């Protein structure tokens, strides 16, 4: 139990996928202008990460390994993630077309979100069991969502700030993201002792 908790804390905060490992930066920058969109993205990514972690573990454990097809994992995982993402897209379109509009291209792009593939591959590399895989996937998704929402609220505040012309938009967003990563460096070494 304690190990699962530490795994969750590690994946969500200490080794935050966005701010410590710099994975999944594309939606982090792209869908952080509005809170509603970011919240939708956070939920969609959490959903995809959790489902994809579980399914990829199942595929790995019960199909690829028994058949000796370990080398196919990247291909198979991407296929699997693409399927889950498509399903998520259908769900989003059915529940909130506005959110579907807001997320735009970034929703299908969850497929190529390196955080998602990263989680699936890390699960395999670290020989996580099914429960561990699910917890790891969910907490990575939660960590991504947390970073995204914090970043979005920061950017919303910067919207009304008197930012110098040269830094408006993406530059100040990147500086902010950098300072967020700097702040997350405070967690380095946590758990090492």
């Amino acid at each position: 139990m304690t190990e699962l908790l530490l795994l969750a804390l590690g994946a969500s905060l200490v080794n935050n996928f966005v701010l410590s490992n710099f994975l999944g930066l594309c939606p982090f920058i792209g869908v952080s202008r509005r809170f509603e969109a970011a919240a939708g993205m956070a939920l969609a990514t959490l959903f995809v990460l959790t489902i994809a972690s579980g399914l990829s573990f199942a595929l790995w454990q019960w199909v690829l390994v028994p058949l000796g097809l370990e080398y196919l994992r990247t291909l198979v995982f991407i296929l699997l993630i693409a399927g889950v993402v498509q399903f998520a897209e259908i769900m989003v379109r059915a529940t909130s077309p506005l959110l579907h509009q807001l997320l735009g291209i970034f929703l299908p792009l969850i497929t190529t979100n390196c955080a998602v593939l990263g989680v699936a591959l890390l699960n395999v590399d670290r020989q996580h069991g099914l429960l561990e895989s699910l917890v790891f996937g969910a907490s990575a998704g939660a960590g991504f969502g947390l970073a995204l929402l914090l970043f979005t609220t920061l950017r919303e505040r910067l919207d009304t700030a008197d930012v110098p012309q040269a830094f408006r938009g993406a530059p100040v967003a990147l500086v902010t993201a950098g300072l967020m990563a700097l702040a997350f460096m405070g967690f380095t070494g946590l758990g090492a002792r």
Partner: protein
Amino acid sequence: MIAHGDPATIPQATRTDMRFDTSPAPHVIAGYTVPRVMFQVLFALVPAGIAHVALFGPGLLLQLSVACVTALLAEAAALRWRDRDAAPALKDGSVLVTAFLLAFSIPPLLPWWLGALGTALAVLLGKHVFGGLGQNPFNPAMVGYAILLVSFPAEMTRWPVPMDVESTRTWSELARMSIAGFYGADLTARWDGYTGATALDSIRNGLDLRYTLPELLGRDDIAGTLGARGFAWINLAALAGGLYLMLRRIVRWHIPVAVLGGLLVPSFIAHGLDSGIALGPALQAFSGATMLAAFFIATDPVSAATSDRGRLWYGAGIGLIAWIIRTWGGYPDGFAFAVLLMNLAVPFIDRYTVPRIYGRQP
């Protein structure tokens, strides 16, 4: 009966006698201005500064001078670059507060160019990239400090051995060493033994080497009667300055109390559970940057939460994260990162701690 209703049909009257200015209400203000707030903060730092100089030598004064000059130059340059009038911004004192906080946080032996670099980064990257006074989401001084700390860890953790450690050192030697350090001389050659880690750092390293806390505290170079050697007095002086600010209502109680609560409550519990390795509340409160952070750094209004409830969450978060980093983290003192981490949560906190408006349901 006249045809009424259409104002255009009613003749206009013109008068030109005595005219008055028609500015909007209110017509009076308290006149308690930003510069006065900022200079009160600087004034409240004086006791801590005196303690600092008495215990660690005049290095602080050197760092202060380089920080203030750099800060004013950086502020002026940033405003000139944006075609803004620099004079009011230089006079409002806010950039001096940043310089003071950074100078108080960095070791007094730091070479001057690092102090200047840190200050310039604080003012430019921490403040003016976001638009200057009032716009920065992060505490500029802590931005500068954190960048220096992750980039120059060795220089940033080398402190003079404080005067209240029993030894034969004199203050004038400290002064000479400070000047040497300021110009970047290699201190290990002549001054080895005069420098060392801070008390918190020593305890952390000692615990890593499997010493117990009572053993470490038994060494007379680490802790005194109240807290860490040297830092206890600075903390006490900062506490006095902070209480003065509270008395003048420049700082309200929420953030300092929450910071101290967030730090001391867990340390009290942990110390109760295992006094062999967990630092007690007194040691936590009077070592490192605790009081400076609680009263001067976390309370920077620009980067803090705005509602009373939000300030409590914000302060408690800083205290708790600082405790976590001090206890398990890779850095000896966690306040800079704790402040930055909670800074980035501030808009989020503000979003969920809007106070109840009169006449609305909670």
